[in-house]
């Protein structure tokens, strides 16, 4: 019935708020609503260290290499399939080592979810020239597809 559990070491994606888009590791559970987390990676490699302090009910303790360990509400998290092996509230160093070992970053970027997010980001950051190039590429691709289709139709007809 359930595959993704809130547990220590679960990697989650932040989908609301200041830390939007970051991957976080659940490091402890505060209560039904909140969690201690540590940010794993940023998909946009540019944000600075921010202090998290949220406290509605269901929370977790969350952590990540580039983030100060803080609380997060489960409502802001989306659990992923990945889980790393860590003790309850690990030091930053042990967390980073465990993440390197589990290779979370590469696994995430190769997963279909991760790939989709990267593509979305890319699309959002295109400039006009890029969009022009994409238009040409699309036309080319459609042309090739149509040629193949025409060939198949001919074979079928004859």
């Amino acid at each position, binding site marked *: 019935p359930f595959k993704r559990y809130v*547990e220590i070491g679960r990697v989650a994606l932040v989908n609301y708020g200041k830390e939007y888009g970051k991957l976080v590791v659940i490091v402890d559970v*505060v209560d039904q609503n909140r969690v201690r987390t540590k940010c794993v990676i940023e998909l946009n490699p540019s944000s600075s260290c921010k202090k998290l302090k949220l406290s509605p009910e269901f929370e977790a*303790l969350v952590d990540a290499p580039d983030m100060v360990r*803080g609380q997060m509400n*489960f409502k802001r998290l989306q659990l992923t399939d990945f889980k790393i092996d860590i003790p309850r509230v690990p030091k930053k160093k042990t967390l980073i080592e465990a993440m390197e070992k589990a290779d979370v970053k590469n696994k995430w970027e190769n997963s279909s979810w991760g790939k989709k997010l990267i593509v979305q980001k890319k699309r959002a950051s295109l400039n006009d020239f890029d969009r022009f190039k994409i238009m040409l590429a699309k036309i080319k691709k459609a042309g090739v597809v149509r040629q193949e289709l025409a060939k198949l139709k001919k074979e079928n007809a004859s």
Partner: protein
Amino acid sequence: MQFHQYQVVGRALPTDSDEHPKIYRMKLWATNEVRAKSKFWYFLRKLKKVKKSNGQVLAINEIFEKNPTKIKNYGIWLRYQSRTGYHNMYKEYRDTTLNGAVEQMYTEMASRHRVRFPCIQIIKTATIPAKLCKRDNTKQFHNSKIKFPLMVKKVRPPTRKLKTTYKASRPNLFM
């Protein structure tokens, strides 16, 4: 509302009969320093024959959490006024900071018992080690291998700007 913990030190003003009045110190929770001082006089009036008009606050300092990244179990003893009388209560909260636990307490008292801030007096607060916790609600998180699924996927727009009243399709709540 963010509660802060203050230490307020005050005494009655020195008079001819009493050159060195006794100094009293109190630790309270309030949203700001002004309210903290006011609450200090409220309590002091109830305990000693002194008012703000014939007393002085000697110091007010904010007390900060020593370990805000460590999850602790807080027990709060309170005295509150309900519609029918005064009652004592003991409540437990899991939080990283004492101020957070106190805030949880105030909001819970308001929601569960309709008791507002002025009618609550905090008698004592303490960090409770896990073995001594009394409430099942906090004890259920004392599990080093805690694991539970999230039941419902809350579908929210990532910023409030993208919030719309009408949606094209029904949200999928399956996790």
